[in-house]
Each structure stands twice: as structure tokens, then as C-alpha cells.
């Protein structure tokens, strides 16, 4: 029997209550620990970096109620097996600047795909969660099939984080001239 998939509805402006309750100010919910605070445990081998950025709407205003989730391979190119959540994390963006920051390890390439972090974006006004990817400007991205499928070089660059020391910057634009490429996975 085939059943129709449930329709998506916006996460709304109060997503933090359910997904990052400590961030939302619900004292001691889940022991005061928001799920996904750490993408990897601190002893995970690899090159540790910071990825940070901001998220904007079509008029360049910060999307202050967004929540981002990240899912990535480790430094050997492996995604966590069933039963594991290493490589996954989430952030509520800052309520004023719509900024986020995560500490993680650089993923390795997986098959013919260049190293990347999968990102899922939800917010008030976003009816269906948006998938995108963070690539790295230090990596060899030439053969990556997703980047190769984007004809416009300016749009392709919307998926590539730029390095500044140990920090990579990756901004997300939901709409407009700088619109990020979003994926139908």
C-alpha cells in the first residue's frame, strides 16, 4: 500500500521550544543540554575548524528565527552508521544578527563528491525545509557533480565557504541576487 507523504508545515518562530529548549530559556529541559550542540565529540580525529555565517531574506534582512541542521561525513569520508548521530548538529541562529557558528572537523570526500556539509534550513516563512551544502574553498571541487550541475559561476560560489585562518564563512541567502542554491534531494 502506498500512502502519501505528510505535507510539511513551517517550523514557525517558536521552533526553539521543541528543538533547542535551553536556547529558548526552558530551564533544565532535557538536563539543560540541547541536542546537536556538538557535531563531533572532542576526541574525534581530523582537522578542527569553525564554520560560521549569517542568514538573510530577500531584502538582506537577518532571518533571526532560523534553525540550521548539519549532517556530514567524518575525516575518513564515513557517515555515522545506524544508531549513531556523530556528524549531526543543529544551531538556532542569534536572535539579533542571525549568525551561527559551529566547531567541526573537515569532512573527507565521499565517492565523487567533494568534501561538504549538508545543511537543512527551517524558519518562519519557510514552508518546506531547505537543503543546501557547504563546500570548502581549500578543497578540490572540480569534479563534484552537484557543483558541476550549476551553470552560473556566481551561483556556484554560493555553496563554497571562504577561508579566513581556521574559520570558514558561509552565509545563506534565502532569496535575491545572492540567493543560495537549494537542493531537491
Amino acid at each position: 500500500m502506498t500512502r502519501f507523504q505528510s505535507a510539511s508545515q513551517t517550523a514557525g518562530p517558536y521552533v526553539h521550544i521543541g528543538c533547542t529548549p535551553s536556547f529558548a530559556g526552558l530551564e533544565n529541559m532535557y538536563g539543560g543540554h540541547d541536542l546537536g550542540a556538538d557535531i563531533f565529540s572532542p576526541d574525534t580525529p581530523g582537522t578542527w575548524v569553525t564554520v560560521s555565517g549569517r542568514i538573510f531574506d530577500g531584502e538582506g534582512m537577518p532571518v533571526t528565527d532560523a534553525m540550521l541542521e548539519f549532517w556530514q561525513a567524518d575525516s575518513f569520508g564515513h557517515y555515522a552508521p545506524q544508531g549513531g548521530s556523530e556528524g549531526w548538529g543543529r544551531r538556532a541562529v542569534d536572535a539579533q544578527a542571525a549568525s551561527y557558528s559551529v566547531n567541526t572537523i573537515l569532512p573527507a570526500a565521499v565517492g565523487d563528491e567533494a568534501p561538504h556539509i549538508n545543511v537543512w534550513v527551517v524558519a518562519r516563512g519557510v514552508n518546506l525545509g531547505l537543503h543546501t551544502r557547504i563546500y570548502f574553498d581549500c578543497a578540490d571541487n572540480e569534479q563534484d557533480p552537484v557543483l558541476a550541475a550549476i551553470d552560473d559561476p556566481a551561483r556556484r560560489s554560493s555553496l563554497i565557504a571562504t577561508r579566513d585562518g581556521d574559520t570558514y564563512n558561509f552565509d545563506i541567502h534565502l532569496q535575491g541576487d545572492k540567493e543560495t542554491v537549494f537542493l531537491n534531494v
Partner: protein
Amino acid sequence: MSLQPQALTPDYRSSRLRSPSHKLLSLAPGAGELTGPTFGHDLIGPNDNNLIINYAAPGQAAIGEQIMVHGHLLDGNARPVSNALLEFWQANAGGRYRHKKDGYLSPLDPNFGGCGRTITDADGYYSFRTVRPGPYPWPNGGNDWRPAHIHFSCFGVGWAQRLITQMYFEGDPHIPLCPIVQTIADPQAIDSLTARLDMAHTEPMNFRAFRFDVILRGKVSTLFENKLEGN
């Protein structure tokens, strides 16, 4: 007709500047889409799935109509999705969220946080106890009221199945009036987000039960058959 809402739905004003104008780029699912984070049952505390008491002072309870919400998490082929994390959030019985951005005049309930979670069992079954949330007004340009609803965050087996949606209650007159509900064009798809009163599981003199199943996209092997329609 698309089962999923379009990105740009002007009657829901917040979508106007937050909807991508380019078509989504389709890609063949790879390792990153077919795998996803999964969590152990040891993550869940004993009261995580009881919103009536999980934020209440000892011996206290949240105010409101006592209900149980239960059902199955399934994939597009009606197979159970076991061991999957479900997270819930909602307004209190008066329609007020415990959130600094909610300034509705209806008061907070000191014993209600509005946050819960559980992990599906081997049959994909879940349940949680809560109070029925109230409807509330919201700024959308008119006299807009949200139908009573509970937000669901659902993990599946693969990253491509990640879903956030909302559960409504059978018979709520605000469902056809709500611009957020009406971002979904297909009436059947709206109907499938509407929980049904379940007298068979309603406990006399205790709580009413509502049944709500969530259907994720197809399991790993069938994701290709369940491609989202592009928007």
C-alpha cells in the same frame, strides 16, 4: 496537485521574502542523503513524552484539557519507521508559547513548557501526553488565528526524510481559514495532518486520545520513487 506546499505562498506573508525564487537543483541521493542521524532510546528521559508534568513543579501539572496523542511513523510504503526521534512543541491551553517573541496577552502557565520528545518503538509507534493547545492570533495582516496545533519534528532513516510539520485537531473551524494550513493546496494532504478523536484509546474519567500518523518519504531503497515535486 503537489502534496507539499510551494515555497512562495503570498497569503502567508512571511514566505514572500523567505522563499527561493530559483528552482531547486535536483540531485541523485548519495550517501549523505540516504544516511542520517539516529538516536538511542537512552536519550529519552522518563517524562520527556509527558508535557503535562515535564516542566511542572513537583506535584503540580499543566492546566488544560488532558489528551494523549499517538500513532505511527511510517514511510511512503506504509512500513513502520522504528527508533526514530520525534520532537514536539506547542502553545499552552490558552494559546501562549513559552518564548520571548510571543507577546500574546494570554498568560503563561508556570507548569507548562510546551516541549517534548520520544523515539518510536519497533513498530514505529509513538505516544505522548499533553494538554490540548489553544488557538491564538498572529500578525499576518488581517484577523488571522492559528487553529490549535502541535508542531512535530521527525527524523527518519535518511537525511532526505527530515520533516517538520504541524498536527491539527479534527473539527477545528480555523483549519480552512488559516493561511499557513492553506499553503498546502491538496485538501487530502491537509486532512492527513488532522488528528482524529480516538475513543478506543480514550481513558474514561482521565484523558481523550487523538490519533495521528506521520508519513515520511520512501525508505532508502525507494527514495527515487518519492522525489519531491520541484518548486
